[in-house]
């Protein structure tokens, strides 16, 4: 059997969306191409961070990567579309756009770079947690110090909401929240649980501000070694694995909210997503050009229609 290296950044736990995807892919591949691959898992940044994994896909040292959308956007700005704040109202809408024409066009940008985009798995919506007050309306973000990734889209989003974005390394964030250097942060549910954030933060506001898409990317070098039927089977496996993964992550996320409530967090939903989107329109304008006018409009039309 041929070695197939699958890499991602988070842990190899049963609740982790990346890990679920990796194991689903393995199962689907075993079913469609039995005995073809010896799948080796490299969780926890074992083969490098996402930048290096993307490069590894190019060089053929990694066969499949499960990569956070924001990291892929450093390679091609079209991917920034997926990270636009308050773009998708719910999961179904996101799946529709990402599985459709828009998603295909974005993934297609990878083909000139030695990679094949197989689809987008579910990372879950990102939400805000903080110690100042529940975020119900856009004004609640004002003056609150949120840790963000070192990423202009996220920094821009908090700036336009009047918040105080604080880019900070992930490894420093927990202590910073504990000791009050920051008031809060924005992350998916699974990450809140995995890192014990209920211990140091009070309010969980289900803002759904950014849909976290996980790019499932294969190396072109790996694909070059496959026959046409094998390629098709591989792609089908990825699609099937993604669809199962979405269901599993959705089930898990309902449980996670309950779990966080039990752990003592005060949970709330936001009142009016449209009001938030109104506020962050400057971010849309800022990135529209880099993403591509046509692509952007197509996506906007789909989420409104």
């Amino acid at each position, binding site marked *: 059997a041929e070695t197939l290296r699958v890499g991602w950044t988070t842990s190899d736990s049963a609740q982790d969306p990346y890990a679920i995807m990796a194991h689903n892919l393995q199962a689907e591949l075993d079913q469609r191409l039995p005995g073809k691959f010896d799948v080796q898992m490299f969780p926890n940044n074992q083969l490098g961070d996402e930048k290096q994994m993307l490069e590894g896909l190019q*060089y053929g040292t990694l066969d499949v990567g499960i990569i956070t959308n924001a990291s892929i956007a450093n390679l*091609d700005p079209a991917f920034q579309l997926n990270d636009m704040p308050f773009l998708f109202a719910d999961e179904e809408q996101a799946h529709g756009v990402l599985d459709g024409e828009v998603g295909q066009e974005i993934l297609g940008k990878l083909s000139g770079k030695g990679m094949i985009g197989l689809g987008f798995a579910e990372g879950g919506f990102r939400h805000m947690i903080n110690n100042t007050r529940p975020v119900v309306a856009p004004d609640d973000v004002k003056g609150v110090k949120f840790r963000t990734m*070192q990423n202009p889209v996220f920094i821009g989003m908090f700036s336009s909401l009047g918040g105080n974005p604080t*880019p900070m390394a992930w490894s420093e964030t927990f202590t910073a929240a504990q000791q009050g250097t920051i008031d809060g942060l924005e992350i998916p549910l699974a990450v809140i649980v995995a890192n014990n954030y209920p211990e140091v933060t009070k309010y969980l506001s289900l803002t759904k501000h950014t849909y976290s898409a996980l790019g499932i990317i294969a190396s072109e070098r790996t694909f070059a070694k496959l026959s046409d039927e094998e390629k098709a089977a591989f792609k089908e496996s990825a699609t099937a694995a993604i669809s199962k993964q979405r269901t599993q992550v959705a089930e898990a996320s309902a449980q996670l909210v309950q779990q966080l409530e039990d752990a003592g967090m005060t949970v709330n939903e936001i009142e009016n997503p449209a009001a938030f989107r109104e506020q962050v329109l400057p971010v849309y304008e800022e990135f529209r050009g880099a993403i591509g006018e046509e692509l952007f409009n197509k996506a906007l039309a789909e989420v409104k229609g």
Partner: protein
Amino acid sequence: MINLLDRLSNWTARATDAVVILMTVVMMSALILQVFSRYVLSASLIWSEELALILFTWTTLLAATSVLRDMAHVRLDVVISYLPLGLQKFWNRVITIVIFLFCIALAVSGYDYTVSTMGQVSAAMRLPIEVLHLAAPVCGGLGALHAFARIFKPVVVTGKPKEFIG
């Protein structure tokens, strides 16, 4: 000819040192500015951490080449110190050739890396990633120059204490 090569290597190393000193000043200033801005201006800088990290890679790789010029990278010489002096000299030259070959490999590897990652941008400042990745081929190239010069004109061993680390 050998003297010329040696002088070129020496001059390059001292010029490298000057660049390293300048970069260090900027790197430390960026870190201090970050703290200052966070507490005094109560606004976080987006670029400071990334700038400091890019300069860290550059200062490390550049200073490593001028350390190479002086053959001062740490090594275990307990075993070879038992060899007769003539054989030690010969063996040290073999090691220098090995280092030279490695630096060539690093230069080639760094060139490939820089070329294959063109188009990528840095996460915060959105700078072309070559600003960072070029450090590898430059380090390989400078290292190769110094090692090549040292093949013909080895370091005169003195009784002075070596540089120490950790």
